[in-house]
């Protein structure tokens, strides 16, 4: 049984229990014993429509029209491109509380190869008016974001976290975050005035280790977990680059539609600073473990260090 599926289901179950008017619409039957139990005790709150991604989204919209907050998802990362029209016209346009939760974009489905590695998921959803785009980097943040979206009743895409990064992620123990987690927010994981390092999701551990290396070289990096891609936490981002004078954005995402592009536009409007992007560029992925792919596409901490020193050299002097 797939650990990511279990992990995702555990989160869904937690939201179902906390929000009485929430419904899960899935493409498949529940995998965990707990979810099967919940589904049988609460008829109508876990709905499996079968392998029909477009209809899954339409049914989710219909249920939301009747007052529910709907957590919609399926096990294919291709839900977004396949259901783009349904998301656009039937969820975002009428502003319905449908939370499209996972499966993980980026390299989470590494072994399945390029067709199933959606490296443009955030761009697709960022383009769409009314859509909220979030990438949590650990379980608790993920749950808090799902609850915040549910309470505010907004359409949202939440890139699910693959189980792998939760287990292997040093951030899970390294950051005990007690601050608020909400739409339009971000976390300052490390303060510094040399360079702003900005990312989300699976890449956060790479940023933290890059910051340790940079510190030994005399550059104190400020590390931001920009888990809310849209709307951007503009004030927090601007206040960081006003102190550091430069920024590096690291992303498990294609260049087009990336957070880097959004930051470029933001800084350009308010406070232009050198901005370097470390991302997958303009290519599709290929088979490999998520770790191998991160090395191949130069997304490791050493790549972040390289980009950070270059950005620091070009920084806007204050």
């Amino acid at each position, binding site marked *: 049984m797939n650990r990511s599926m279990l992990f995702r289901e555990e989160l869904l179950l937690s939201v179902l229990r906390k929000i009485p*008017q929430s*419904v899960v*619409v899935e493409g498949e039957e529940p995998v965990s014993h707990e979810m099967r139990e919940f589904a049988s005790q609460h008829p*109508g*709150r876990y*709905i499996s*429509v*079968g392998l*029909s991604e*477009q*209809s899954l*989204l*339409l*049914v*989710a*919209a*219909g*249920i*939301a*029209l*009747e*007052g*529910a907050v709907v957590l919609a998802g399926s096990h294919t990362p291709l839900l977004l491109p396949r259901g783009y*029209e*349904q998301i656009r*016209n*039937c*969820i975002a*346009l*009428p*502003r*319905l509380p449908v939370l499209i939760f996972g499966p993980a974009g980026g390299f989470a489905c590494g072994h399945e190869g390029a067709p199933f590695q959606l490296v443009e998921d955030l761009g697709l959803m960022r383009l769409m008016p009314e859509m909220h785009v979030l990438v949590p980097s650990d379980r608790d943040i993920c749950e808090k974001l799902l609850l915040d979206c549910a309470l505010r009743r907004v359409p949202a895409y939440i890139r699910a976290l693959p189980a792998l990064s939760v287990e292997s992620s040093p951030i899970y123990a390294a950051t005990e975050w007690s601050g608020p987690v909400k739409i339009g927010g971000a976390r300052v994981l490390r303060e510094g005035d040399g360079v702003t390092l900005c990312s989300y999701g699976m890449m956060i551990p790479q940023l933290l280790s890059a910051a340790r290396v940079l510190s030994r070289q005399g550059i104190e990096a400020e590390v931001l977990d920009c888990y809310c891609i849209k709307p951007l936490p503009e004030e927090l981002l601007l206040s960081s680059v006003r102190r550091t004078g430069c920024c590096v954005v690291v992303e498990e995402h294609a260049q087009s539609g990336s957070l880097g592009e959004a930051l470029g536009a933001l800084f350009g409007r308010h406070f232009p600073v050198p901005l370097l992007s470390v991302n997958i560029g303009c290519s599709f992925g290929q088979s490999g473990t998520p770790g191998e792919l991160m090395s191949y596409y130069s997304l490791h901490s050493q790549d972040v260090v390289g980009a950070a020193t270059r950005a620091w050299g070009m920084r806007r002097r204050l």
Partner: protein
Amino acid sequence: MDDDFLRTLENRALDIRKDVLRLLSLSQGGGLLESFALVEILVYLYWNFLRTTPASPLDPSQDRFLLGCVQASPVHYAVLAHRGFFPREDLWSYGKLGAMLQGSPDIRRTPGIRYPVSSHGHILGIAAGMALGLRLFHDNASEPPRIVACLDIRELQEGVAWEALRIAREFSLENLVVLVNCSERGDQEHPSIWLDVGRIRSRMNLLGWETLEGDGHDYRSICKAFESLEAFPGIPRAIFFHTRIGRGIPSLEESGARPDFSDRSWLAGALHELDTFSRKLRKGGGA
């Protein structure tokens, strides 16, 4: 259905056809032919079938009506205005910048529109979702609202429509009624197999739906079809209504041609043709 009530519905339909003509001649475009095919079905629904309260259009106890065929939205607007959902004056700004009545119905602007609009066949998936949502949220004290989704038979060429038909049957959505508008074009000599109602009905029957057939311009036939629904409880049901595009204006009905709205004398001619046709119908005692 007694003769007096029938006469009321006929007068209503004539008024609505005239208003559709007026609003389309003002907007200089829109689906006149598709609108006229649906007048009798919509008049029947809004004056004799659906439980609606125009003063509180979002009341959860009301029946829901979803119209898939976007081209026919002018007739839906005219029906909603005549039923009291909004003032009739709003019809005259249809499709204009800032108008409440957008070219495609907008759930966030128009009272009485409770569904988002997308491309062909999508309305069935949304209707199925609404039926599932109602199951969850409707209190058992009152009779559950019904969901009526109307779409064009050509929309059943879309795969997504058949996904929804399967889902509706799997969940036995007994509150869902689908109306399939089988409109014939006057100029069409060889209808495609997708207009073969018998073939499509048998496909739906194989999926487990109950299907009926009726004449979409004859109130007695429409009434009979809706009354026959009661005989098939517990499953989703569909009625295939035979209609004619441009119905009411014989010249359009015959040719199937799009009218030239920029011709100023056209409106007067069309209104006159409508009156003559409806007088003839009454004398003849039916279509």
